C-alpha cells in the first residue's frame, strides 16, 4: 500500500523533472543542456556518496557496528590531504593515499580500543562512536579552523572536459570521482562474490557462526574491515574536499548522507548502497533545481522524508535482511 504510494510519488516526481527538462524541445535554447549538467552533478555526487557509504556498509555488514564516527573520519581524510597538498606541496595522489591511511588508522585504533570488546552491543557501540566523533570534530576545528577550504585537484584533472554536445564542458575531477566510485564498487563486488569474507557479509552470518565461516582469525578480519572502511571514509573526504570544500559541520552532514544511502539500500548490502547513493544524489540535485521556487528551500527535507518513508515500509531498508 504505502510502497505503491511511494513508487507512484517517485514516478510522478521524475515525470515532473523530465517534463520541465524537455518542454522547450531539444534545441540549445531549451532546458536540455541544464538538465544534462544537473544530471551529471547528481551522478557525480552519487559517486561521492557511494565511496563513503561503501565503507560504512562494509563495517556494518561484517561487524554489525554502526560507525557514527564515519563522518568525522571522512572530514579527517579531507583535512589531512589538504594539509599535505597545500603546506607540504605533496602531489594530490600521494596525499590521497596518506589521508586514507590516516583515517584508516584512526578508525582502527577506535575499533581496537573501544569497540572490540563490546561486540554485539550495537547501541552502546553507536554511542561510543558518537562520543568519538564529538572529540574528533572538535579537535579538527582546533587544528584546521572554521574557514571553508578546498584542495587543489591534480594538474591534469583541473581543466574542464568538453562533452561534445551543446558546447557543454564539465569538470574533469568530478567525472573522475564517478570513475573512482565505479572502481570501488567493482573491487567490492569482487570481494563480495569471490571471497569468504564477502560470503559472510552477504549471508548476514551471526556471531556464533562467524568463527567457523572466517577461520580463527575473526578479529584480524574485523580489524582489517574497520581499517578499510575508515580509509574509504577518508577517501570520500579527499574527494569532497577537492570537488566541493572542507568545513566544520560537514562531518555531520556527510555522516547523515552516508547513513541515508546505506539505510535506504539496507545495511550491509552493496547494491543497496549503490541504489541509495543514486537516489540521494539525483533527488538532491533535481529537487534543488526543479521544485517550484517557493518550495526549493525544502529540498533538503525531501531526502529525509524519503528515508523515513522507506524505513516505515521496510524497517531494514530496501535490500536489508530482517535481523
Amino acid at each position, binding site marked *: 500500500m504505502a510502497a505503491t504510494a511511494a513508487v507512484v510519488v517517485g514516478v510522478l516526481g521524475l515525470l515532473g523533472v523530465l517534463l520541465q527538462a524537455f518542454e522547450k524541445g531539444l534545441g540549445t535554447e531549451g532546458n536540455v543542456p541544464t538538465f544534462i549538467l544537473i544530471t551529471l552533478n547528481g551522478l557525480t555526487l552519487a559517486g561521492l556518496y557511494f565511496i563513503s557509504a561503501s565503507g560504512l556498509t562494509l563495517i556494518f555488514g561484517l561487524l554489525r557496528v554502526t560507525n557514527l564516527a564515519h563522518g568525522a573520519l571522512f572530514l579527517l581524510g579531507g583535512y589531512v590531504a589538504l594539509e599535505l597538498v597545500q603546506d607540504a606541496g605533496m602531489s594530490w595522489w600521494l596525499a590521497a593515499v596518506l589521508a586514507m591511511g590516516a583515517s584508516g588508522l584512526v578508525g582502527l585504533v577506535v575499533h581496537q580500543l573501544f569497540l572490540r570488546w563490546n561486540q554485539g552491543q550495537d547501541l*552502546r557501540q553507536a*554511542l561510543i562512536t558518537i562520543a568519538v566523533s*564529538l572529540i574528533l570534530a572538535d579537535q579538527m576545528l582546533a587544528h584546521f579552523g572554521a574557514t571553508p577550504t578546498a584542495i587543489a585537484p591534480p594538474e591534469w584533472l583541473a581543466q574542464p572536459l568538453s562533452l561534445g554536445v551543446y558546447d557543454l564542458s564539465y569538470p574533469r575531477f568530478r567525472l573522475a570521482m564517478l570513475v573512482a566510485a565505479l572502481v570501488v564498487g567493482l573491487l567490492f563486488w569482487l570481494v563480495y562474490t569471490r571471497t569468504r569474507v564477502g560470503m559472510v557479509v552477504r549471508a548476514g552470518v551471526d556471531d556464533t557462526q562467524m568463527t567457523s565461516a572466517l577461520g580463527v582469525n575473526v578479529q584480524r578480519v574485523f580489524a582489517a574491515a574497520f581499517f578499510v572502511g575508515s580509509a574509504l571514509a577518508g577517501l570520500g573526504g579527499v574527494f569532497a574536499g577537492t570537488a566541493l570544500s572542507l568545513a566544520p559541520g560537514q562531518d555531520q552532514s556527510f555522516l547523515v548522507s552516508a*547513513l541515508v544511502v546505506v539505510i535506504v539500500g539496507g545495511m550491509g548490502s552493496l547494491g543497496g548502497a549503490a541504489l541509495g547513493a543514486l537516489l540521494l544524489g539525483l533527488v538532491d540535485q533535481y529537487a534543488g533545481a526543479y521544485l517550484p521556487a517557493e518550495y526549493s*528551500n*525544502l529540498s533538503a*527535507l525531501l531526502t529525509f522524508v524519503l528515508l523515513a518513508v522507506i524505513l516505515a515500509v521496510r524497517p531494514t531498508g530496501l535490500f536489508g535482511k530482517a535481523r
Partner: protein
Amino acid sequence: MTMDRMLTLGTRGALAVVLVVVALVPVLCTTFFTSQVGLTSLWLGIVAVSLTFLSGYGGMVSLAQTALFGVAGLIAARLSVESGWDPWAAALAGILAATAVGLLFGAVASGSQGIYFLIITLAFAQVTYFYFAAVPTFGAHEGINGVRPPAVLGDPVQDPARMYWFLLVVSVLAFLGLRHVSRTAFGLALQGVRDDPVRMAALGYNVRLHRILGFTLAAPVAGAAGVLSAWSNTRMSAGSISLAIAILVLTTAVIGGLNRLEGAWVGALIYTLCDTYLRGWTDRFTTWLGVVFLVIVLVSPGGVVGLLGSAGSWLRHRLAGGAPPPAAPSTPAPPVPVSSGGAR
C-alpha cells in the same frame, strides 16, 4: 530490618534535603546562576527525561525528542508573539501539536528497532529542522524572538525566581508522572516490549501499539520542555533543534544515566555547569564533553546516577555491618538497552 528501614528513611531524607536545596537556589544564588544554570538545566532535564523514559523503559533510543521540543516551542512562540494568543493557551496548543506529531513519528518508527530506530528518528529530527529552517512562518533561520512568558512567572532574565520554581514543579511532575507510568500495567508491558518483543507478542500484546503509545506519551514531556525553553530564553529558532542539539540531549541523558529517570536532570545539570564555567577555562569544551561521554559509556552504562547508586549501596553495605545487601527494590532499574536484542 530496622537498619534497612532507617537507611530507606535516610535516603528519603537525603532526597528531601536535595529538593529543598534545589528549591532554594533562587534565594541563595545569584540571578545569573538561577537563570543561566538553573533554568537551562531544568528544561534540558525535562527534554532529556523524555528520552530516558523511552530508552530506559521502552528500549527506544530516539533522536527525535528535540524535534518534538521544537514543534511545541516554535508553535507556542509563534502563536503568542505573532498571533497574540495568551501564553498558556499557546503553550497548550504547542504541546498538543507535539503530541500529535509524536503519535505520527511513533506510528512510522514503531516497526524499526535498535539502530534502525535511532536512524529513523534522526531522519525525523532532520525533517523537522529543515522544515522550520525553511518556513518563513516560523521565522526561518532567524526564529521567533521576544517570546513573553505568562506574566505570573515574571521576567526570566531580570527576576528568574518564579520561572525557576515553575520549571522545578514541572520537572517534579514529569518525574512523578513517568515513574507512575512505569509501574502501571502499560509501563510494565512497555518494559516487556523492550526486553523481548517476540515474547510479548506470544503473551498476547500488540507490540507496535505499545511502542507507538509509549512514544506518544513521551512527546508532551519533550513538548513542555520546548515551551519552557522558549519562555526561559524568550526566543527559539530552528538552530535550537539542530542535529547537534539532538546529539547534545542524547549526550546529557547518557551522562546522567539511561537507567533512571532522575539521571536526565543530573546529566543536564552537569552539562550546564560545564557549559557555563568550563568554557572560560578551555577552548576545547566539546572535546572534554566527548571524553566524559566516552568514559561514561565505557565504564558506567548507568551513567553518573548509576555510579552514585553503586557507591550508595557499597556504603549501605558497610554501614549495615556486612549484612547481605538489601533485596531487589520494588521497581528494579531496567538494564541499559545496549543491544537491540529481542528479535534475533
